């Protein structure tokens, strides 16, 4: 099995290396064939692994490959932990990656960086595999930063665009803020458990639990610090600011990295650490509240966006918030379930948006679209499936996962859970509103497309529509098919620990009968009507009476201003962190380093020596009679002092 797991991880890397170093030599076709082959191998093997571990309940694989560092009893290795959680992640990552690889053939067709792009996305796939397959914190951190690196390279892929290279720097640095917390968390794990291996750490938790730091349980501190890392990667408020900017990258990577896989690394990590998070209600409450804030407030921003990718990006933020809420209420398997359904439908939506963008000659403003339904039927229908899945329309994939999150919050006994419940239910309305608003503006209504573009408007190439269809299928059925086994039949049981005091999952289990029975039941629930309300509002404002939208905007100009300025996060960061830090740097450099240390202390002492030399120099005249005079004169003074000073100690000798 070890070889098989290695092949999964390494085959995209081999593809990436070939594409990166020999891409220009190999040519476009050979490059994409090679990289797609690499990911295809991983996908097939991942399905095999999924079958072996999840369906046939094969044994958990936990083995080190090689010793990275050995210091006495501390062993840090590179190794794999393959359990059901990993198996699910492998399938999701490899499948979406494969689709994105294929889609790229069409999307990047005329780009000069074609081979470089394939190299990057294959490298990303490798890094993501390393992250989810890790059996220890060091390798987790390696994967964590490696996906960040590739994300950096891909956001800045069009490096001639100033906005793109600004965004990738921002993305890297904000992620580094998260990683700062993450690394400290890892450091505390080592300090208190003496190991970085997951299983060793988990088994020594009893020992760690009783210790205190800063008046809190050490376990709480560790969990909060690790969660800071998750906040960076999974873009939770206030570390979410990098994700909208990441849309500067080509659309395929927005689908792969900034929607389906990398941004869910934080969700995966917290689920992986469930034995630790379960020990701290404080940490879980924080996780839940941060998630709820992100889910609600980032969704609101989706309403005022007019860039097709930005709308989807804010929707991603909001959905990541939902997943985080699920983590907070100890419904880890529900979070992973939503992670999976979201990966499919959000990748679909992004790729659909990409298809529209290509057709529109890179026009991304949804106000300048409209009526695309007839021109792009495949994109239209798949986007419809994606949208319905996103808003949680009964029967679609997102319906099951989101409904379970809302119910799990409902059953949670954590403090503030009732507020969070309100947030996630209102969030359903908002999600439906911005999703359908975009959907209507792009595909329905009057065409507002520029006439020059309208002439050439046509459906995208098969290499782009095939992935759309291939992702639409799971967006439709995956929830229905997997909700039972994944949440209630123990698919993830060997990876996730839930304390008995956290009853959400047990309650959900009691309520759950079958996937089919959830659909008719949905009509009696509040979230369903919130969703219908959202759809209706969107229809009214974007199809039925478009002028009402302007009227509301004017009436609520204050709210509108707050939303359009994105709550001022960017302005605050620019003011405090960008300009502030530059000012501080200049101050330290000019005043302290150059001014005080170098000018005054260093060159000052050199000058002092020079000065003393200058003063003393006239005395050294070289004339004997000058020296004789000084000697006699000095002797005179000394004698006078000896003789006439009152209680001179010398006299007592």
């Amino acid at each position: 099995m070890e070889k098989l797991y290695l092949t999964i991880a390494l085959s995209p890397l081999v593809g990436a290396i070939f594409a990166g170093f020999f891409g220009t030599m190999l040519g476009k076709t050979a490059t994409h064939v090679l990289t797609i082959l690499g990911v295809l191998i991983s996908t097939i093997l991942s399905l095999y692994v999924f079958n072996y571990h999840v369906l046939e309940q094969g044994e958990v694989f936990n083995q080190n490959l090689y010793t990275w560092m050995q210091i006495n009893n501390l062993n840090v290795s590179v190794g794999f932990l393959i359990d059901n959680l990993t198996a699910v992640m492998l399938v999701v990552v490899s499948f979406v990656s494969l689709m994105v690889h294929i889609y790229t053939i069409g999307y990047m067709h005329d780009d000069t960086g074609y081979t470089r792009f394939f190299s990057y996305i294959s490298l990303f796939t490798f890094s993501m595999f390393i992250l989810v397959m890790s059996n220890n914190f060091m390798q987790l951190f390696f994967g964590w930063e490696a996906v960040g690196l590739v994300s950096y390279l891909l956001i800045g892929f069009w490096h001639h665009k100033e906005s793109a290279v600004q965004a990738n720097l921002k993305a890297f640095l904000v992620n580094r803020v998260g990683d700062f917390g993450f690394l400290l968390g890892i450091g505390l794990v080592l300090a208190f458990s003496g190991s970085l291996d997951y299983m060793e750490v988990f088994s020594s938790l009893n020992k760690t639990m009783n210790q205190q730091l800063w008046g809190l349980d050490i376990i709480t501190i560790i969990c909060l610090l690790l969660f800071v890392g998750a906040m960076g990667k999974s873009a939770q408020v206030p570390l979410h600011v990098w994700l909208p900017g990441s849309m500067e990258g080509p659309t395929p990577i927005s689908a792969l990295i900034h929607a389906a896989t990398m941004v869910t690394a934080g969700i995966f990590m917290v689920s992986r650490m469930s034995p630790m998070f379960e020990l701290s209600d404080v940490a879980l409450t924080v996780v839940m509240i941060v998630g709820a804030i992100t889910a609600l407030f980032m969704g609101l921003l989706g309403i005022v966006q007019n860039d097709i990718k930005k709308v989807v990006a804010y929707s991603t933020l909001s959905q990541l918030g939902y997943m985080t809420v699920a983590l907070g209420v100890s419904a880890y398997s529900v979070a992973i379930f939503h992670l999976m359904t979201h990966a499919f439908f959000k990748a679909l939506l992004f790729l659909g948006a990409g298809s529209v963008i290509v057709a529109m000659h890179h026009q991304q403003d949804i106000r300048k679209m409209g009526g695309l339904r007839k021109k792009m039927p495949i994109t239209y229908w798949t986007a419809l499936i994606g949208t319905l899945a996103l808003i949680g329309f009964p029967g679609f994939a997102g319906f099951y996962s989101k409904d379970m999150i809302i119910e799990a919050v409902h059953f949670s006994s954590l403090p503030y859970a009732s507020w969070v419940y309100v947030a996630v239910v209102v969030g359903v309305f908002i999600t439906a509103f911005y999703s359908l608003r975009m959907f209507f503006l792009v595909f329905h209504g009057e065409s507002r497309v520029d006439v020059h573009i309208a002439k050439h408007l046509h459906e995208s190439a098969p290499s782009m529509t095939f992935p759309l269809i291939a992702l639409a299928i799971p967006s439709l059925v995956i929830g229905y098919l997997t909700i039972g086994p994944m949440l209630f039949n123990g698919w993830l049981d060997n990876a996730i620990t839930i304390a008995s005091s956290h009853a959400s999952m047990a309650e959900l289990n009691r309520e759950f009968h079958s996937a089919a029975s959830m659909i008719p039941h949905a009509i009696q629930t509040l979230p369903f009507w919130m969703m219908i309300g959202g759809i209706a509002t969107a229809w009214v404002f974007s199809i039925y009476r478009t002028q009402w939208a302007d009227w509301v905007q004017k009436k609520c100009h204050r709210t509108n201003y707050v939303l359009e300025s994105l709550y001022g996060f960017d302005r605050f960061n620019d003011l405090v962190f960008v300009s502030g830090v530059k000012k501080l740097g200049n101050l330290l450099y000019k005043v302290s380093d150059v001014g005080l240390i170098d000018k005054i202390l260093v060159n000052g002492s050199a000058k002092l020596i020079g000065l003393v030399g200058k003063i003393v120099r006239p005395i050294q005249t070289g004339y004997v009679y000058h020296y004789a005079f000084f000697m006699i004169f000095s002797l005179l003074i000394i004698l006078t002092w000896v003789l006439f000073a009152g209680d001179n100690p010398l006299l007592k000798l």
Partner: protein
Amino acid sequence: MEDSLLSLLIWLPIFSGVLVIFIGNNRANTARWVSVIISILVFIMSLSLYTSFDSSTHLMQFVEKTSWISQFNINYHIGVDGISMPLIILTTFSTILVIIAGWEVITKRCAHYMAAFLMMEGLIIGVFSSLDAILFYVFWEASLIPMLLIIGIWGGDNRVYASIKFFLYTFLGSVFMLVSLIYMYNKGGSFSILDMHNLELSLVEQGYIFWAFFMAFAVKVPMFPVHTWLPDAHVQAPTGGSVILAAIMLKMGGYGFFRFSLPITPDASLEFSEIIIVLSLIAIVYIGFVALVQRDMKKLIAYSSISHMGFVTLGVFTLFLAYKPDAIEGSLLGLEGAMVQMISHGFISAAMFLVVGVLYDRLHSREIPTYGGVINSMPKFTGFAVLFAMANAGLPGTSGFVGEFMVILGAIQANIWYGVLAASTLIVGAAYTLWMVKRVFWGTITNPAVATLKDINAREFSILAILAVAVLVMGLYPQPVIELMHTSIEHLLHQALTSKL
């Protein structure tokens, strides 16, 4: 050959340097070829230090000892352990790179330039292998001379100021070291460093000796606040000079703490460890902010060097606070992390200075605003530059991560706040490095001269490729290096924790 391998490593480059001077500047090509062949030969010979090294003992190996000045019991006594051996190989490795890097670039007095680097190589190997304090001191001071000449002759416009500042700063520091060495000779009757390790010293004596050593080593590292010579020296030095300065000469300071301060003055080291830790943390945090606002690329990298070397001193001195009787891993993480950081910094700073050198050779400017959009005309070069920048920012998978990771993990065990401050480099280090990358490499070309730049040639490519391999291999598999030094470091830890009082 085994018996006199170390002597060969020291004297072969020195005498070859003399030979190269006699070849003369008129026969520059001969001088270049002789130099590069000698440096490769020395490197290969130094590899046999590695292959026949016994990492299971902390005892000195490849020991040579003959009497030198018998009246004062001064011996020509050399040998290596797991602490000095990796640094010697780093020296022989870097020397090849700088000689190749100066190949076409140095047209003025080429033979002398090559000779200076060869001699310096021998002298620095002498520093790392000396087991006699006076011999050590002689090599230590002598190694200043070639560097002084390199900056003073082949440097930039303000080279005289920089070279004198460099010389006085470092010379001032080491004078105090000489005084304390003589004091210990008077007390113990031996200049042998290993004897000094066992010399009984009171806390007061240790205190004076500790600070005298500190003066010498802190200037070399350099530590805050005696670091201001470094940016000037780097800015004025030619590329090769910067590479050797950053990659090796700074390590002499770090090495001093390992070889002298900890074992000779263990109690004073414990007593004053928190002061050194605070200075190290200032170096990491404060210098990071200073680096952020630099416009001169070399200055920026020089400040980044100071910040990274802060991890070395931090790792060394957290050993006392991180120590737990039942688990010494915390202390070892700091010490071994410091060693790994020194080696890694040797690769990365060399690479970063070479990267700037490549640009400087073309446009004769080190100012960041001169550039912008370099990727458009130099894509291959940009690939390397981004890799090294990421290594400089401590990305896992590169050597830059390993040392920082180990030192931070150790520091957290000493005191969580040390860890917090040290880990802030994750943000600040990435900020100054990648902001520079953004302004120099990404974006559109604004300066028409940048559009005419030619991508790196085979010579430049091979130097950068060798360093890239070194950075990646050490990042992905550091265990061989750690294993090499482990026994020596553990012995050192034992010495540092054993009170002399």
